[in-house]
């Protein structure tokens, strides 16, 4: 043994004798994780969160979360002498007079956008591969909670600089609050400590943005990761991969190196964006005053779909018993998002109830092998995309020479018509892909090579699939539709409730599949 190794061993032994870490470390560091690019989307979220914590801490050193009125005396000349809040002035100070301040602000904002984009991409991966199924329903719900919190946290951060653009966003948030029947106006007075804008909301938002929500975030992320650790990571189906094992690389050294390297790449790339792409130039927008507004005021993208919903809603209000109910804000601003997020959180339970599948799943679905779920996802995505597009309707109108009214009507109709179309089209595409898989397994890969046989016949040469590939294409299970029992065990006819009928219908739709090739079919082909 070399001296160096002896020394390392001595240190390790010293620590083990005092902490008993060796046993735990051995188990932990050799834990296996499966390898796939789509499993790293969640890592991008985690690393962006760390970047947000670091850059955010830097910003707190100079940010003054106060609505005290000050006269600007910093180095940005076009605002010289303008009256503004201390929050806005200190953001200008960070941008122009603190070394590296603008870079840090931009890194923070870009990291926030990527944080939420990666979170949505991660959610889509989990949804379309069925990774939310038992036993991971709880983690799905934690994830939905994290997404909701992320949107709120992003919105609050965007509002802190107290510039004219973000102040407009706060004003809309106030309007949505006030749209809640009966308690709305009281709630708004409670939040703003009086009439809008008051002097309190920046300090309050600040506490929530830097302390409360990041705290909840940390707790939820820890729970999220601990559950991943405990339940083990899901994996894509393949030879040697079962519901009972995990095929991949050990945490140390492979995953440690990959994940550690990836963190620095994400950090570096975010810093690169912060250095070359201007984001939220608040100095051009000017300080917030409730009397002013700018054309093309938009929220960040993760709120854009909400803005789009509000923009497309027709102006409907009712007055009754001395109360005004603004349906045009209430429905798109609260009711629809509430329904959407509730459905999203409950989806694992809905699916398992409808399909009657209560088993544990650790192998993922290929999206095409569950056409119904994939189509539902495509439908939801289309809905959000239409609303998101309508959120930018004014910019689309100006830059593509369109009429804003036409875009609005397109969205109003499209938001009802396009999602069902997306459902049907996606389902058909999935079934077509299944058919292609079936063909591939039965007849092999088309090689595009034509051969003339001695008697003059032309045939195309097909290359048979490798056993591994064939296994991958056929290992999924195809559940038959639930047979709805018509009588109970004593032979008494069961009532046909709407729930039973819904369940039967869903289960029939979910079981619509292209039958995968059987062993007999394959043997028959081989005889030819």
């Amino acid at each position, binding site marked *: 043994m070399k001296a160096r190794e002896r020394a390392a061993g001595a240190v390790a032994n010293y620590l083990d004798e005092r902490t008993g870490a060796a046993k735990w470390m051995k188990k932990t560091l050799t834990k296996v994780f499966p390898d796939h690019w789509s*499993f790293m989307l969640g*890592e991008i979220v985690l690393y962006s969160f760390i970047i947000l914590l670091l850059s955010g801490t830097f910003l707190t050193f100079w940010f003054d979360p106060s609505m005290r009125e000050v006269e600007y005396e910093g180095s940005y000349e*076009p605002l010289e002498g303008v009256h503004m809040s201390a929050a806005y002035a200190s953001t200008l100070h960070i941008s122009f007079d603190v070394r590296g301040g603008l870079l840090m602000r931009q890194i923070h904002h870009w990291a926030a956008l990527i944080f939420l*984009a990666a979170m949505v991409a991660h959610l889509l991966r989990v949804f379309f591969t069925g990774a939310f199924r038992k036993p991971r329903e709880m983690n799905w719900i934690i994830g939905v909670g994290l997404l909701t919190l992320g949107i709120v946290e992003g919105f609050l951060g965007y509002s802190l600089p107290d510039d004219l653009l973000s102040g407009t966003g706060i004003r809309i948030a106030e309007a949505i609050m006030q749209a809640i029947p009966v308690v709305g106006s009281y709630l708004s007075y409670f939040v703003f400590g009086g009439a809008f804008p008051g002097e309190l909301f920046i300090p309050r938002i600040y506490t929530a943005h830097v302390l409360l929500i990041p705290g909840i975030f940390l707790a939820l992320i820890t729970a999220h990761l601990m559950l991943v650790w405990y339940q083990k990571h899901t994996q894509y189906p393949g030879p040697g991969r079962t519901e009972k094992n995990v095929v991949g690389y050990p945490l140390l050294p492979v995953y440690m190196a990959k994940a550690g390297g990836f963190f620095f790449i994400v950090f570096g790339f975010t810093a690169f964006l912060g250095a070359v*792409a201007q984001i939220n130039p608040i100095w051009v927008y000017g300080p917030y005053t409730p009397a002013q*507004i700018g054309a*093309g005021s938009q929220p960040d993208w993760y709120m854009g779909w909400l803005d789009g919903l509000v923009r497309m809603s027709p102006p409907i209000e009712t007055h009754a018993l001395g109360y005004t109910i603004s349906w045009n804000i209430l429905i798109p601003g609260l009711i629809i998002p509430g329904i959407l997020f509730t459905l999203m959180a409950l989806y694992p339970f809905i699916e398992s109830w409808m399909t009657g599948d209560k088993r544990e799943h650790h192998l993922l679905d290929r999206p095409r092998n569950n056409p119904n779920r994939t189509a539902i996802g495509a439908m939801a995505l289309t809905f959000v995309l239409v609303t998101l597009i309508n959120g930018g309707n004014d910019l689309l109108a100006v830059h593509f020479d369109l009429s804003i009214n036409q875009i609005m009507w397109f969205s109003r109709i499209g938001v009802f018509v396009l999602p069902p179309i997306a459902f049907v089209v996606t389902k058909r595409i999935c079934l077509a892909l299944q058919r292609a898989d079936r063909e591939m397994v039965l007849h092999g890969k088309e090689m595009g090579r034509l051969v003339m046989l001695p008697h003059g016949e032309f045939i195309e040469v097909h290359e048979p699939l490798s056993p591994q590939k064939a296994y991958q294409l056929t290992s999924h299970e195809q559940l038959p539709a639930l047979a709805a029992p018509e009588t109970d065990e004593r032979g008494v006819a069961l009532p046909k409730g709407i729930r039973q009928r819904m369940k039967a219908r869903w289960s029939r739709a979910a079981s619509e599949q292209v039958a995968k090739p059987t062993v007999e079919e394959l043997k028959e082909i081989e005889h030819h």
Partner: protein
Amino acid sequence: MARLSRYREHRFFRPVLLALGLFLAGALFTAGKAAAESMESKALVISADKATLIKEGKEIFARGCSSCHGLNAEGAGAAPSLIGVGSASVDFQVGTGRMPMADMSQQAVRKPPVYDEYETAALAEYVASLAPGPKALTNEEIAWERDGNAASGGTLFRNNCAMCHNLAGQGGALTQGKYAPTLMGVEPRHIYEAMITGPQAMPVFGDKVITPAEKLDIIKWIKEVESEPSLGGATLGRVGPVTEGLLAWTLGLGALIGVAVWLTSKAR
């Protein structure tokens, strides 16, 4: 030199030299012609007396404008009467290329002007001679650089202009395909004239609403925003979070997913 002369033997030497020569000659001619024409046209405006200007303006009007605006500028159908709109309106509409209109769409589009400075001045004089109206200005008459105050201009801009023209003056949508155009790269005198004449969907900002001094403040602020170096990197069009979100999803997440694919690909 010895190195350079080696290229003379190359078979592309002569064609490339010829192309370069032709290009240079063409570029010089075009630049010279444009400069000469603009100087000539300016000199003509200064030297011409009012009566000739009006006479020539009337001729140009009859040829280029009367088919829509009527032989005596009385207006017809879609085209409004021009009696009393003043020379400022003509200088703005013709000087920014909006008139003559490219087509009868929702709004006249800014494009390279059809008439040169002399012809525009003649048209303006002619229209001004029909009835009194707001007077056209020259860039020299508007001392925005000396008298303007950008900070006050910014506040005025946010109070009066930003709701249509966007917080950074990049333009914005109005109803039914109409729009408030971008204010970047507009001649100061055209900005001033737009405020006093209220072209298309724009309201008139008379001297009692925004004083002449305040108008200079606004112009100064617009020009400062326009000439501001893009602080913190490429500006992404300065239209707010929409382009930022687009970049975050495409280049941002796209590149990171690319890295993830690379990191998880099997070694070959």
